[in-house]
């Protein structure tokens, strides 16, 4: 949960700003009322601040419109254990939706860098060789088309300097929620062969990796001599010493400007 807390630290100051740009029904007091309703009804499964628990994290508000969220709350998701909640008034449901929609939403804020110049830095540094934006680039690392709406500028800055410290959790449907995503793993087979890659999935008996060349590997754990999970590391290099302070600001501004498919 360390990652989630760090992310939240970046998001929380922006929450009120975010709320103020929403529709009239979603005033700060509605978000606060929604939080109270959420803490009474939803928190047991979805965790505090929507961080996830037995039920998924709710930190991807872009996936749903207000209407679909209202429908999910009112009708439940029968094949996933989400119950119908029909005891709220229409206004209370709206407040709940306001709160859930506020989770993980990062507002546009004025940043020191220049997004246009940042786009140049992005291309010059070869980010496209690992990341995809609007369908262009490679799929090794996280897809970044909507990253600016999901991650606060402070988080993005930290991710550039120390990518291993901010491995995401709960942003992908696979692996299971709350696992580190893009976790580097080194495996050594019984015949001494070493494969290093990002964990794609894992169960008690098998593990699936994608190596730096974007090739899939699958192993039965009983056939491996060693499995080393490199917690705190990332296959992405640190850009702390590769970029000037101004370039970093520009790149953060560019990434923050990516707020969904165009």
């Amino acid at each position, binding site marked *: *949960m360390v990652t989630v807390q760090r992310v939240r630290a970046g998001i929380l100051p922006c929450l009120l700003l975010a709320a103020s740009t929403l529709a009239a029904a979603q005033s700060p007091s509605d978000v606060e009322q929604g939080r109270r309703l959420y803490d009474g009804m939803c928190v047991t499964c979805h965790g505090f601040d929507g961080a996830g628990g037995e039920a998924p994290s709710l930190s991807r508000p872009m996936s749903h419109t207000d209407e679909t969220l209202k429908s999910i709350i009112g009708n439940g998701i029968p094949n996933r254990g989400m119950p119908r909640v029909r005891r709220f008034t229409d206004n209370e449901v709206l407040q709940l939706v306001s709160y859930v929609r506020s989770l993980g939403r990062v507002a546009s804020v004025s940043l020191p860098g220049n997004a246009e110049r940042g786009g140049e830095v992005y291309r010059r540094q070869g980010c496209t060789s690992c990341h995809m934006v609007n369908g262009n680039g490679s799929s090794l690392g996280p897809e970044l088309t909507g990253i600016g709406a999901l991650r606060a500028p402070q988080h993005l800055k930290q991710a550039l300097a120390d990518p291993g410290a901010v491995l995401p959790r709960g942003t992908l449907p696979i692996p299971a929620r709350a696992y580190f995503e893009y976790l580097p793993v080194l495996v050594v087979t019984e015949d001494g062969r070493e494969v290093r890659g990002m964990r794609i999935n894992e169960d008690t008996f098998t593990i699936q990796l994608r190596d730096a060349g974007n090739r899939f590997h699958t192993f039965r754990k009983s056939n491996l001599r060693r499995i080393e999970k490199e917690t705190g590391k990332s296959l992405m290099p640190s850009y702390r010493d590769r970029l000037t302070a101004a370039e970093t600001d520009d790149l953060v501004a560019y990434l923050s400007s990516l707020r969904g498919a165009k």
Partner: protein
Amino acid sequence: MIIQRLLRFLPGILLAMALNQVPGLAQVTYQRLLRADSEPANWLTYSGNYQSHRYSQLNQVNRQNVAQLKPAWVYQIRQAGVVETTPIVADGVMYITEPPSTVTALDVSTGRPLWTYSPSIPADVIAIGSPFGQVNRGVAILDDTVFVGTVHSHLVALDAKSGAVRWDTVVADNKLGYWLTLAPLALDGKIIAGVSGAEAGIRGFVDAYDAKTGERLWRTWTVPAPGEPGSETWAGDSWKTGGGSTWLTGSFDPELNLLYWATGNPAPDWNADERPGDNLYTCALLALDPRDGKMKWYFQFTPHDTHDWDANQIPVLFDAAINGRQRKLVTVANRNAFYYVLDRETGEFISGTPYAKQTWAEGLDAKGRPILRPGMDPSVEGTLVYPYVGGPANWHSPTYSPQTKLFYQAVREVGAFYLKGEADYKPGLAFVGGGQRALTGDDAYGAVRAMDATTGQMKWEFKLQSPPVAGLLSTAGGLVFGGTEEGNFFALDAESGRPLWDIQLGGGIRSGPISIAVDGKQYVVISAGFALFVFGLP
């Protein structure tokens, strides 16, 4: 020709009619339930026998050949949801429940449905407290009737041949948050049932119903009213919404004529400001006289619980020598991370040993009461405590093997920040007063642990990728079967924990395995995802 054919079958038809008219030859009698161990081809009660061993005497599938297991048939459930059912198998028919409260009878040799019953459940049904929504854990069978509890808080008796309703009794008011998820327990002429709903602030009870009529025979409240024994452990009106659900099937000792039933957490879960005291009889094991429901003894595992550590785990009954003396024992791997050994005649505490990481107690005193560490209660900013709310053990079944004398438990190693919130009782709404932020994902793991059943000392463990929700089965073939959240169904060597076989079933396993035989051939049964799988040797 038709007449000739009829005449040819007439003796058989007459015999069948005669059999149906003789009550003594009804399908699954109490006598058969008492001797469930003697007919291992069937699975007649939730935990396999009244002692709740979840152990199969069948040994055709064993260490040597288990790796050859192959699917025999698969049944896909009708309405997608989490399948927690333990099938009941009797005389060629498998009775399962499907979410939310549907009962289906299947031909055990082909998986073809014979009948299905779906109660009409109101759209505004209240089902608070289950992380997996509207679930059901199975039916009970007695004579020629099948019994199911429903999410809208009914107990329904169905004709075992057709699924026709024999009676339908309202157990409690669902508008107040009462609901049923457990498999009822069939005794001699009566059906025992308990309720879920502590997260909505119910007042819990154990009920007995006349198996023929559905009439309630007795009710034993798990939270005493003012003036009753134990009421001094509640403050003010807190007893009225005190929780103490009874949501898991109990065990039964026919010789002592005692029913063992566990109770859940006090309400509200994480904010105990309004309920100072031990909050009897929550988080406890009750020994009840099945004739009238009177409590012979109780043992409270977690007095004044503030972490939602329900005691709704399976109480396992067996006899063993302790310090040279043969004792009748009941043991529980409790949600608070201690494994308890109690005398089941008296409730006397014999021993308690941690079987998973725990940070809340220094240990247990001579009477089994926890010696609390300070500062472990939920707080506004969050208090890190092991185990997490779900506990290392929960409703998922353990198994006891009379062959190895080991108690096997699927254990969850998870910590959580416990958070205290406001608790305001409103009928039919969540009444919990907080929550948790669990350390899941790579910070958590699971294991199958084998413990000396009389001491709780760990013999071996087999690590699992994540905290399991699946129960275990042990067999006379020297095997332990279990499942994972990632969909692995597997068999371990019961002596060593060595993995011998596994298969990926494509959906989380949230039920307990059973073993049966059809035409002399052994099968192992488990649900995973939205389906029920039956495995046999080729």
